[in-house]
């Protein structure tokens, strides 16, 4: 086996820790639920902790899992850097760690060495794909973009901004005239859009870092008498049920999937690892892209 990774014996039943970051949005809730569901089918005793948005608490949560002697830990890191100690301590205690949905600082901790693998998608890529869809599908000659950022300073917000902004800069039809935080929330997304609409009445594209803010933006547009989908193109990320419905209704252009359903993949990966298989350092989740063409087929799987 790879250097230093703690082994996992093959057992019928595992005591598995899942260290969740927070539960204040539908995406996280769907992710947690996915783990809880799979715990039953995969024969796990799930030790679930919730760090309530604090990286430090999440490290402490992982430590309490270590103290309880779990067999393996699935960690959804709050942040890349501060969770490194949690990974290291688990490794020192001989417990294999699987990272879920976000990774930790690759400069300090390495897959296949300090932790088993990272299961997840690439936030930067999500932003980039949203930009690409926009570049391909935008009909007008001048795209005036308002960007609704996620929680200031959070890594998905930073990454989704980076991916989108870099890609869109390569096309001079587009200009981002305002970029403000809507805190990943519908209400804030709505209020920010209402305000920015006043300051930038000529805007015709909204890029939201998640679907909730996009829905809020749609509401703001409607109140202001604009037609979302016609006057204003909306691109977003996540793939929630409401977003798919908005796409079907023609109010939204695209949403790049960011699947929260890690449970089955986690179960599978754990089994493979216990069986002694070599695990690739990044178990990529194939994120689909939902548009008018396929939204109707997938709406029933959405959360």
């Amino acid at each position: 086996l790879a250097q230093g990774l703690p082994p996992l014996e093959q057992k019928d039943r595992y005591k598995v820790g899942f260290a969740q970051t927070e539960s204040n949005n539908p995406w996280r809730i769907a992710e947690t639920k996915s783990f809880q569901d799979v715990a039953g089918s995969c024969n796990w005793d799930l030790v679930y902790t919730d760090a309530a948005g604090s990286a430090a608490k999440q490290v402490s949560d992982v430590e309490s899992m270590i103290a309880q002697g779990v067999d393996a830990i699935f960690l959804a890191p709050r942040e890349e850097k501060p969770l490194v100690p949690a990974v290291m301590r688990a490794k020192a205690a001989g417990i294999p760690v699987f990272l879920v949905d976000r990774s930790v600082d690759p400069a300090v901790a390495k897959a296949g060495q300090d932790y088993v693998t990272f299961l997840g998608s690439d936030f930067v890529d999500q932003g980039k794909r949203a930009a690409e869809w926009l570049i391909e599908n935008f009909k007008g000659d001048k795209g005036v973009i308002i960007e609704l950022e996620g929680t200031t300073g959070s890594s998905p917000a930073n990454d989704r901004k980076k991916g989108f902004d870099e890609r869109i800069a390569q096309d001079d039809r587009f200009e981002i005239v305002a970029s403000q935080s809507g805190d990943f929330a519908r209400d804030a997304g709505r209020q920010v859009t209402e305000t920015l609409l006043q300051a930038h009445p000529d805007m015709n594209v909204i890029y939201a870092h998640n679907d909730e803010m996009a829905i809020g933006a749609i509401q703001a547009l409607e109140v202001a008498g604009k037609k979302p989908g016609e006057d204003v193109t909306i691109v977003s990320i996540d793939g929630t049920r409401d977003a798919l419905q908005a796409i079907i209704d023609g109010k939204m252009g695209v949403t790049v999937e960011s699947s929260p359903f890690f449970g089955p993949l986690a179960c599978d990966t754990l089994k493979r690892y216990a069986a002694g298989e070599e695990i690739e350092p990044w178990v990529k989740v194939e994120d689909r892209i939902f548009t008018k063409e396929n939204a109707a087929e997938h709406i029933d799987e959405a959360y």
Partner: protein
Amino acid sequence: MSRERSSAERGVLLQNPLSGISLRRHGGLIALALLLLFNIVFTRNFLHMQTLFVNVSQVATIAIVAVGMTLVIATRGVDLSVGAVMALAGALAPLIFMSSFGRANPGLGVALAIIVPLLVAAACGLFNGVLVAFLNVQPIIATLILFISGRGIALVLTNGNLQTFSNPIFSFLGTGRILGLPFQGWLALAIALFFAWLVARTLYGRYLLAVGGNETAAGLAGVPVRTVKIATYVISASLAGLAGLIVVAINSASDAARIGNLMELDAIAAAVVGGAVLSGGRAPILGAIFGAVFIQLVRYTLLANGFSDEVALIIKAAIIVFAVYLQQASRE
């Protein structure tokens, strides 16, 4: 004798409205005027009906909660639970009108979806009030309990799920218009006027100020201290519940994890900028509305002029300090 007459004359002088207008006395108003001026010059499309509309619709919830907060602060308390109570009320409403009963009786369903959450909110206020009035728990701590767990209860009720709906009658609370301005704006105004009248003209108002000013003395003068306190917390929570319903109605969605997040801070800031003193004994209700407008306008200004979130935080902090400073100076 002669002295008496001259004191009376001085009284007249003091009450003379003209002698009252000075820079210091109206610091808050001047700050607001400066802010407006800045916007008129620098913010695009500021003098626009739609701007007024947006701001009124956004300020309404803060204003409503700030009115209740002002009353609580007047008793020397503070209510940290408003945000959580908003979430609780906001989570309940869709549960009710989307239940099978609510669907079967749409009219009654919506009525209940407004009344029941308000009652639950009032019950939260009762809980806070009883802790404060009967068990002498310090208000910050008493209301901290619901601050911590109120949102949790809302999340348990909804299983953490976002509830989305389309219900035009209920949504009127948040999206309706009267004379071109948002319904909730008129509602906030009506609430403010009502409570301003209540404080100025009624027994409750006088008792409120007495309890906040000197609880012991008030009790010895026959003021029903506990009743007054409990009533005040109930009012504050009920108003928060109403604000929660409005938020849910605007969004056509209820997200218990987010409704009313950090509302307590906005409401307290609005109350204090409006002239409330945390040591109790004053209840400037119209001031609270002024404070809410001020805070909303600061937010709008920073957003519309493209200040990034982190810089906006620093500027907002400076403006709050400055506004309270002016408020303070004008009182001394």
